[in-house]
């Protein structure tokens, strides 16, 4: 069980949306983790690499700021085994590359631009995630 946190989740969501808007306003870019990460690993140019590195550095600093204000790290409970993390991670990497995006790029940025591609992508991955969770938890019973 995890606690239902509508207000914290809504507030966090507003910040995620705000960051997406600010990145578009300043950098003219979609805030999509897949694209940012891919460009960080194999950059097109040094100028293209620097803003991605700065953005990710900011992201990684955030949990420490959260700790400073709340006295606790953001809660992370891992309900899956390490092999599942590894297998899941590789599958996610394959899927987001072929699908050109993930929850942030398609789910937030694309859907809010009413991009049909992103809406199709988001509905697809939400559906397969739900099916996967159902199969793992209620069919296999892991």
């Amino acid at each position: 069980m995890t606690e239902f946190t509508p207000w914290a989740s809504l507030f966090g969501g507003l910040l995620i949306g705000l960051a997406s808007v600010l990145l578009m306003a300043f950098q003219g870019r979609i805030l999509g983790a897949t694209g940012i990460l891919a460009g960080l690993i194999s950059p097109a140019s040094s100028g293209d690499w620097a803003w991605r590195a700065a953005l990710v550095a900011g992201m990684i600093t955030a949990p420490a700021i959260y700790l400073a204000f709340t006295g606790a790290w953001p809660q992370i409970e891992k309900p899956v085994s390490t092999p599942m993390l590894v297998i899941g991670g590789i599958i996610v990497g394959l899927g987001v590359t072929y699908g050109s995006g993930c929850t942030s790029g398609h789910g937030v940025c694309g859907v809010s631009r009413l991009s049909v591609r992103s809406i199709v992508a988001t509905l697809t991955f939400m559906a397969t995630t739900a099916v996967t969770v159902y199969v793992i938890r209620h069919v296999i019973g892991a």
Partner: protein
Amino acid sequence: MKLFVTYLIGVVFGLGISISGMGNPAKVLNFFDVAGTWDPSLAFVMGGAVFVAAVGYQLVFRRARPIFEPSFNVPVSRRIDTKLVAGSAVFGIGWGIAGFCPGAALPVIGTGRSDVLIFMAALVAGLLLAKALLQLNLKPTLRRPAAGN
């Protein structure tokens, strides 16, 4: 200065992930477990984010160009193809197995937890593998029109 502003935008995003609970795989997986320990919180994360982005983008796109760059760099493709749908479907399977998605895992690297680092390493391996596969695939498709002519 530009990089510092971009850094701060990263902080805002990371705080959003930290506060919302998106960085917690247990919460994410429970959102999808309607038949079990359902936690609807994730709908509030997505709802809040999409609301702000939808309104904010409208305002931003009234500008001729972004503040730091000469032009907006926004995807223009409208093609709904197998690659998009199959890729997204595969992503969902991985998300359902691991409970982390890329945007949620990136900020929580900052907690220094080994499980986050293990997921990130596997994710990067998957990204590189996909890139290699795409390049293998690209060569025959590039050759084909030449051979046909």
